[in-house]
């Protein structure tokens, strides 16, 4: 017994270590067979044997690999993407990836690297993305330069880097993204920048670095895709330093947790000396904003002034003729006219969402913007008793209008006469008052997408959607219908071009068989989260190859004569219904198993009845509902005896009758 006892003790002692490996084999989750696996958070000390050799994408973060070397991943030669986030890696030894020719992304984020060998990243024929975020790097010489010829992005955020100067022989010709977020770079010199000379269209991210100085000429005739100096307290240093440079976009915003100086005209003067198309100044404060403040913004195409504490824009800003896109989200306007839109005659996109105060649309405040294509006025507490012709006056080319998440709006007949080119209109979560029989959307002949979800519509108004000849996509989620039913005559009948219809969460109980008859082009119908029963399927008899979502309804049984209607569709979701798994539903259950490839959400398509099968997946149910041999025998015997009895009784009756004569 003694040896057995010690064996047990030994087993117990070892089990802590063995357990992780033993149990983990099953625990890596397969996302795509033989290709993509996630083994995160399993405390693994090696690659599990169960991972197939041909694994291509491996997420292996939050495990334990203090040393990685040529044997660590040698079996998985087909790797393309390898994520080793926070695996407590100290050492990356010679030739770790020597047999991984396909590897293009290595993620080493959050590892306390002590040393990477000279040849540690050799092997991959085209290593494109390298993440060395928060690995304790203080000197860029730490990164092995071999095999970096194909590198497109290098992520070096949250380290202790104080100079962006790359090692002299570091190949940068293919580099597109260089990310130095949250480091300790305080100074940029010409020498630093010269190491990046060969890179074209580079995006350089210096967010979260307190830049205190830039050597004159550092950016001279340099071109960038994007430059980010987010959170820099001193913008004038940066703008002065960027002299004679070209950047497609320049991010100069700041954050809630950073104290910064107010922007002055003098600070922004540097912008006159550079070429830039798009600027972001989010969360900055302007001191004493006047029309001259923007005198260096004349070449600009996009300007983002999100949350810049604006109560208005000065009138008479000159030279902003080429501005195409203006973002004024999360500011403090009282009335739309306070943005003085006339300064931006070329504007095509205007975003004013999430205004801090209740926004008054005024009258014709945007009428000078005759090129406007896209207008976002969502989340503004806008309220209007007669929308929207006065408010949107002369926006003849408007294609996209977002008025979602506002206060109640009243729409009259032809409410969008001023914007006949509208293609998309979003009113979700804005309460709409439309009196019967008004048709607010009439003459929007080009409208393709209309979102009316949660608008508390009066759906009994048959004319509500009149005139929408080209409407493809209609969302009516969360609106109610009379008696919870869509009848033969309904507001959808005029929408002959409709392809996508969303009627989820409308508390529907029934749909008339003829309700959708005029909608012959539909390809996607969402009726989820209602109280529909199986008979509603009849409404789709004229449609083929559609996506039909009937999830979370009250479907118990589906009668056999409706199954061909389901068969002719391409995808069906019946999950979260109280489905009947008794013999009364056997035809449907048989159909279900034969058509599994058509069914979406089959993991959540469960039986509710009988109680013995509650919670069982429909695809796993086995029912035998035919009559058994014994049953047939008894039935035959019973029928035979019945016939015999009948013959005898007839004989008896006849005999009895003739006896009397």
């Amino acid at each position: 017994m003694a040896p057995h006892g010690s064996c047990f003790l030994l087993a117990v002692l070892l089990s802590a270590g063995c357990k992780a490996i033993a149990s983990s084999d099953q625990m890596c989750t397969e996302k795509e067979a033989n290709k993509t696996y996630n083994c995160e958070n399993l405390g693994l000390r090696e690659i599990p044997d169960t991972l197939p050799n041909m694994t291509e994408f491996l997420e292996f973060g939050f495990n334990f690999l203090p040393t990685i070397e040529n044997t660590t991943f040698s079996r998985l030669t087909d790797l393309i993407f390898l994520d080793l986030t926070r695996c407590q890696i100290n050492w990356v030894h010679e030739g770790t990836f020597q047999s991984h020719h396909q590897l293009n992304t290595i993620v080493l984020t959050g590892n306390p690297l002590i040393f990477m060998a000279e040849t540690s990243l050799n092997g991959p024929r085209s290593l494109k993305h390298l993440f060395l975020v928060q690995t304790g790097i203080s000197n860029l010489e730490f990164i092995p330069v071999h095999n970096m010829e194909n590198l497109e992005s290098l992520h070096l955020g949250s380290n202790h880097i104080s100079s962006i100067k790359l090692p002299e022989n570091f190949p940068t010709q293919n580099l597109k993204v260089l990310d130095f977020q949250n480091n300790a770079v305080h100074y940029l010199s010409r020498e630093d920048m010269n190491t990046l000379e060969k890179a074209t269209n580079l995006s350089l991210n210096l967010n979260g670095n307190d830049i205190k100085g830039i050597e004159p000429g550092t950016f001279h005739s340099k071109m960038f895709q994007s430059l980010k100096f987010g959170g820099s307290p001193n913008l004038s240093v940066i703008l002065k330093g960027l002299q004679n440079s070209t950047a497609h976009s320049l991010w100069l915003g700041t954050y809630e947790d950073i104290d910064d100086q107010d922007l002055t005209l003098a600070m922004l003067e540097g912008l006159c000396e550079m070429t830039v198309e798009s600027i972001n100044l989010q969360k900055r404060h302007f001191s004493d904003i006047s029309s001259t403040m923007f005198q260096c913004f004349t070449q600009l195409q996009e300007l983002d002034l999100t949350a810049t504490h604006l109560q208005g824009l000065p009138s008479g800003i000159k030279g902003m003729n080429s501005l195409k896109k203006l973002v004024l989200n999360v500011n403090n306007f009282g009335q739309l006219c306070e943005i003085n839109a006339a300064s931006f005659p070329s504007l095509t996109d205007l975003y004013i969402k999430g205004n801090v105060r209740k926004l008054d649309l005024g009258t014709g405040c945007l009428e000078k913007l005759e090129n406007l294509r896209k207008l976002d006025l969502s989340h503004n507490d806008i309220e209007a008793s007669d929308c929207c012709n006065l408010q949107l006056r002369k926006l003849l080319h408007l294609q996209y209008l977002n008025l979602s998440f506002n206060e109640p709006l009243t729409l009259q007949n032809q409410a969008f006469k001023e914007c006949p080119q509208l293609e998309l209109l979003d009113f979700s979560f804005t309460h709409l008052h439309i009196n019967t029989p008004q048709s607010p959307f009439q003459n929007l002949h080009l409208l393709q997408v209309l979102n009316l979800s949660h608008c508390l519509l009066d759906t009994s108004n048959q004319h509500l959607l009149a005139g929408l000849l080209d409407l493809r996509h209609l969302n009516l989620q969360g609106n109610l219908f009379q008696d919870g039913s869509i009848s033969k005559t309904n507001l959808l009948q005029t929408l002959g071009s409709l392809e996508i219809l969303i009627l989820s969460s409308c508390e529907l109980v029934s749909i008339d068989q003829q309700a959708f008859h005029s909608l012959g082009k539909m390809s996607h119908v969402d009726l989820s989260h209602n109280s529909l029963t199986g008979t509603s399927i009849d409404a789709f008899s004229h449609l083929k190859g559609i996506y039909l979502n009937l999830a979370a309804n009250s479907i118990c049984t589906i009668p056999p004569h409706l199954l061909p209607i389901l068969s002719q569709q391409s995808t069906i979701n019946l999950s979260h219904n109280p489905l009947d798994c008794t013999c009364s539903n056997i035809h449907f259950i048989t159909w279900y198993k034969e058509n599994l490839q058509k069914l979406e959400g089959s993991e959540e398509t469960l039986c509710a009845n009988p109680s013995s099968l509650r919670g069982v997946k429909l695809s796993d149910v086995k029912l035998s509902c035919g009559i058994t041999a014994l049953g047939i025998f008894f039935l035959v015997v019973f029928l035979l005896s019945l016939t015999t009895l009948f013959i005898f009784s007839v004989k008896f009756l006849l005999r009895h009758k003739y006896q009397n004569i």
Partner: protein
Amino acid sequence: MKGFTAAFLIWTLISPNGGGKAWPTHTACRDGSLEVLYESCDPLQDFGFSVDECSKQLKSNINIRFGIILREDIKELFLDIALFSKGSSILNFSYPVCEDDLPKFSFCGRRKGEQIYYAGPINNPGFEVLTGEYQVLLQLYNGNHSTVACANATIICS
């Protein structure tokens, strides 16, 4: 021996990960009349949190300290708060912390695996906490609805 093997098997089956052991309860702040306790409800990890000033008359824009390891990218980050008192729900709201078009804080955009330490203001409104005991469920999640942090907090105001 069979008995031992069986016992061993059962033991190994039951014991992994301590069978849902809870993280310890920490004190976020405590002073005369107000006490805030919290525990992490993310099964994967604990986190550190403290409030600089703890007072019944909560000031606006208070400073906090927060330390955590990110298990997800936080280019987009949302906070859900559910407040309960005596078992009934008083308040629910959702607040965007980081969005693509408005990264409010300097830590927005940091990556999975990064360790974060934040000491700074949170831009809250000032209000008075009424006497009583409250339960608060706080959830931080990213654009894919993956949990970044989860806290069960208790506020005791006397």
